[in-house]
């Protein structure tokens, strides 16, 4: 059974110009992410793994090359079209949670639904449901500063799932967490994967290697090796 690629990166170059210095963050980088994959991207700092995630997540545009989402080329898309893709097809989880401090857990989780035009009542119900799924049903009215790091990250995951996107992108999701909280987060990601979502995690935590079924090692903006487990 040949799985189709949800995301394909084709000959991506990303060049940052910092003053006179040119940094090649990605060099002729090509990668297919298959539907239902759990991909762990490893690499030392400065290897280009964050840039990889930003470009995959349509937060940034490559200097050269194409990103295909569900087979559709994003190169010529407008800002609004890219925003819609981020909203509907991708869910983001960040290292530093990036929750809005003035909003409750429920409002934070419902945020992407505002941008897809869901009514307030439906948004709040959906957010409540999601928070219950990640085990925070009793904390929906708490604000981020009233939650532990692990709880905040779980709110962030609930938020990433709001529009039920096929792909979840996580940038060092356990980087700011203790081992117990990390384990909880990893369990949630695993459950998500089992429910059919495509997961892409960028990390330098070696423990996570065992999580994914595809491990990509990046070095100096290029793929060093790919291990596929199944």
């Amino acid at each position, binding site marked *: 059974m040949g799985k189709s690629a949800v995301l394909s990166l084709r000959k991506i170059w990303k060049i940052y110009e910092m003053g006179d210095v040119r940094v090649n963050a990605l060099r002729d980088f090509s990668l297919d992410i298959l539907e239902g994959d759990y991909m762990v991207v490893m690499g030392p700092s400065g290897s280009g793994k964050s840039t990889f995630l*930003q470009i995959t*997540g349509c*937060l*940034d545009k490559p200097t050269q090359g194409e990103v295909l989402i569900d087979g559709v080329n994003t190169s010529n898309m407008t*800002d*609004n079209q890219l*925003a*819609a893709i*981020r*909203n*509907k097809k991708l869910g*983001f989880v*960040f290292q530093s949670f*990036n*929750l*809005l401090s*003035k909003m409750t857990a429920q409002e934070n989780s419902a*945020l*992407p639904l*505002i*941008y*897809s035009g869901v009514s*307030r009542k439906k948004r709040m119900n959906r957010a409540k449901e999601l928070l219950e799924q990640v085990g925070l049903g009793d904390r929906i009215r708490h604000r981020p500063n009233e939650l532990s790091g692990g709880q905040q990250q779980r709110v962030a995951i609930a*938020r990433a799932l709001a*529009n039920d996107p096929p792909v979840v992108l996580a940038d060092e999701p356990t980087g700011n967490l203790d081992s117990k909280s990390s384990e909880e987060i990893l369990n949630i990601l695993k459950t998500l994967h089992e429910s059919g979502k495509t997961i892409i995690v960028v990390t330098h935590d070696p423990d996570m290697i065992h999580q994914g079924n595809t491990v990509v090692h990046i070095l100096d903006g290029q793929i060093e090796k790919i291990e596929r487990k199944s």
Partner: protein
Amino acid sequence: MELFMESLRSLYANKLRTFLSMLGIIIGVTAMIAVVSIGQGATASITERISSLGSNVFMISPGYSGGSSGRAYVNLSDVLTKKDVENIKMLCPNIKGVSPLIQQRFSLKYGTNNTSSQIYAIYPDFFQILNLDLESGRKINQEDIDDYAKVGVIGKDIANDLFGTENPLGKTVYMTVSVGNTNKTIPIQIVGALVQTGSKLIYNPDKMLIIPFTTAEGRIVNTRGSVSTILASAISPEVSERVYLEIDQVLYMRLHDSTKYSITSQDSILGAVSEVTGIMNLFLGSIAAISLLVGGIGIMNIMLVSVSERTREIGIKKALGATRKRILMEFLIESVMITFIAGLLGILLGTALSKMVEIAASAYALKTQVTWDSVIIAFGTASLIGLFFGIYPASKASKLSPLEALRYE
């Protein structure tokens, strides 16, 4: 709606800052409402006072000669005569009443009470021209004129000074007149008392003692046959322009020089006054408008701070799928909301302030008027300022790239 609630919440989260940025607009709108309402009140009260003279009254006074080419300025005090009064009465068909007027201050005495008063020497038409009503007694009539009668009609204030609570009717007051080096006392019997009216433009009937013109001319004032002023009234306000021309023609026929006399109507005074008050209101209004502008710049400043402070928030929202337009609207609505609320507060405060001024200035019977157009203009200007000065920060926010914004610490 959703956006409104969100921006309200965001404003509420930064209460102090929101309030401070509102302050400029609040003060601007308050000043604008108060200044315009006080200005309009003042204009209305001045207009009313001028109009109290009656909208069809003309004052004819002597002109002057010289004052240029090295010649001395001379008031032509003896240019108008009783003959002109007769002419105007006969030749101007739209004239209702006409009266000569000599005005001079004398000291009056009744028993042990002394006061000084303006003596108005007139024809009976005077009462009708100035629209004077009697509290008791009778007016000066033609018989009094013919008889050089030593009778008078007394104004309320003078009556109070001389008689206190006594009824002035039938009493005799003594007028002290100096003739050469000697003083002569002339008795005047009071035959009528005026109701209190307050001042009517340049005349204040409350401080008048009105006597027949002939009485004054013969024995009290040395007029050499001239009159200092002629008062006339038109049969209706509609014909006042025609009356002006009629009077002008009559006087020109006799004097052959339009600089020797001047005809002043209430309308011409009103015109000049409203021009002055109009300029005044415009001037004060523009000062208030400047403070609105300054308030707007303050809002832009605050919104720019807010954009850079919330860069990360903007990044998160964009990463989650917020479009550029959405971010633009969020910030724009926020700044319009600030000015909107500030505008409302300003209108309330401005109205309160103008009421306070009205109470404080009650002695001048100043009625301030908060008019709808001033409210709408102030409110509209404030909201437009919010929109205008909100556009730049909002577009700056919307143009942030999600990645840059997320990286921002």
